[in-house]
C-alpha cells in the first residue's frame, strides 16, 4: 500500500544525494531546498538529477532561473510547476539583473563619527560585476558597467512588477561580525522609477533622496527603510539593506531606472564595507497575479 512521507536531508554542500534504500520504490512528489550561493564560485542553476543504480543520469531538471554568484534561492521542484517564461511582446516573468561590487584590501572604512558623510566606499571604489538573465530587458546605465555604474536601467515592453533589493555588507574594522553596531544614519537612495532617464531628478546626479521624498515618487508604491532617523538602532547582521516593490509600472516605451548609493555613519565602532549588491527582478503583472500550479 503506497504511502506518502517526508524525508529530511542534513544541511551540507552541493551536491547532496539521497539513495533509495533496498526494497523501496519511491515517486518524488516535491523536492525543496535552499541554495546559498554566498560562497559560490560563479552563477549557478539549481538542479535536481535522478541517477540510476548504474550511475547514469536518467533525468536532469534544472530550474529555469539562474542564481547569481552571491545570491540565494529557495527552490521547489514539483511536477507541473513551471518557472519563469518568456511572455509575448518581449516581456518576461522573473527575469533579473544585478550589480555586485566587491572591495579589496584596504577595505573602505567608515570612521566612528556620527557625521562622517559619505563613506569612502562606492561603486567607483570596487570591482563591479554585472549579471543579468536578460540583457535586452536590463542594461547597465553606462556601457562599461564598471566605474561609475550605480544603477540598472530597465526597458520594459510589458507591464511589470519590479522588486529591487539593495544590500551592503559590513564588518568590524579588521574583520569579524559585529554583535551590535550603531547604523543610525545609514542612508541609501532608494530605487525610483522615472518616466525618462533625462529627468532632472536623475538620481545619478542628485544628492541622496530621503525616504519621504521617495515615497512620493511616481510609481513608487511601497518602500521599506530600516536604518534611518536620529534614534540609534542596532544591527546584528552583516547585511544592511532595503527592498522596494513597484506595483505600478511604466508602460511600453518608458524607462525605469534605479540607483543606489550609501552613506554610512558609525558612532562606534569603525566599520568596513565588504560588498554592495543591487538586484532587480521583474515579473509580468498579469502572471504575477495568476501564478498558479497546474495539476
Amino acid at each position, binding site marked *: 500500500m503506497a*504511502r506518502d*512521507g517526508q524525508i529530511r536531508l542534513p544541511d551540507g554542500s552541493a551536491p547532496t544525494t539521497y539513495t533509495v534504500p533496498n526494497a523501496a520504490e519511491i515517486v518524488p512528489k516535491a523536492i525543496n531546498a535552499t541554495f546559498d550561493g554566498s560562497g559560490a564560485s560563479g552563477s549557478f542553476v539549481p538542479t535536481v538529477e*535522478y541517477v540510476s543504480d548504474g550511475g547514469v543520469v536518467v533525468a536532469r531538471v534544472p530550474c529555469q532561473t539562474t542564481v547569481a554568484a552571491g545570491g540565494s534561492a529557495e527552490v521547489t521542484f514539483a511536477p507541473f510547476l513551471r518557472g519563469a517564461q518568456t511572455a509575448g511582446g518581449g516581456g518576461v516573468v522573473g527575469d533579473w539583473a544585478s550589480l555586485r561590487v566587491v572591495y579589496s584590501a584596504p577595505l573602505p572604512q567608515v570612521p566612528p563619527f556620527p557625521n562622517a558623510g559619505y563613506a569612502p566606499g562606492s561603486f567607483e571604489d570596487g570591482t563591479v560585476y554585472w549579471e543579468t538573465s536578460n540583457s535586452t530587458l536590463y542594461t547597465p546605465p553606462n556601457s562599461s558597467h564598471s566605474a561609475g555604474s550605480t544603477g540598472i536601467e530597465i526597458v520594459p515592453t510589458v507591464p511589470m512588477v519590479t522588486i529591487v533589493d539593495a544590500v551592503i555588507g559590513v564588518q568590524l574594522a579588521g574583520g569579524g561580525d559585529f554583535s551590535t553596531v550603531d547604523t543610525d544614519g545609514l542612508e541609501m537612495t532608494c530605487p525610483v522609477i522615472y518616466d525618462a532617464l533625462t529627468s532632472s531628478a536623475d538620481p545619478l546626479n542628485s544628492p541622496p533622496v530621503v525616504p519621504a521624498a521617495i515615497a512620493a515618487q511616481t510609481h513608487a508604491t511601497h518602500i521599506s527603510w530600516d536604518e534611518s532617523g536620529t534614534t540609534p538602532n542596532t544591527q546584528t547582521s552583516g547585511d544592511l539593506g532595503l527592498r522596494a516593490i513597484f506595483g505600478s509600472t511604466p508602460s511600453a516605451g518608458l524607462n525605469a531606472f534605479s540607483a543606489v548609493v550609501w552613506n554610512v555613519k558609525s558612532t562606534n565602532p569603525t566599520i568596513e564595507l565588504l560588498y554592495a549588491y543591487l538586484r532587480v527582478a521583474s515579473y509580468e503583472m498579469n502572471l504575477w497575479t495568476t501564478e498558479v500550479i497546474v495539476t
Partner: protein
Amino acid sequence: MPAEPLIAGLPPDCELSAGYVIRIVALDPTTGATVSGVSLSDISLFVTDMHGNLDNLAPDPLLVPSSELV
C-alpha cells in the same frame, strides 16, 4: 539577504527503485559543470513510497509520515 523563491518542474510519476539516487546540485549555466561553494539547507523530499514502508526511507530520524494512499 533573503533567498529568492523559485519553482521548477519535476517529471511526474517517475518511480525510482532501490539504488537510484536523487542528487541536488548547482550547475554552471554555461558549461553544466558543478559549481563549488554552494551550500544547501532545509532539504525536504516529499515522496510516495510504493511499498508503504516509510521506515526504510529515512536517512535520519526526521521522517514524517503523512497521508496514506489507498
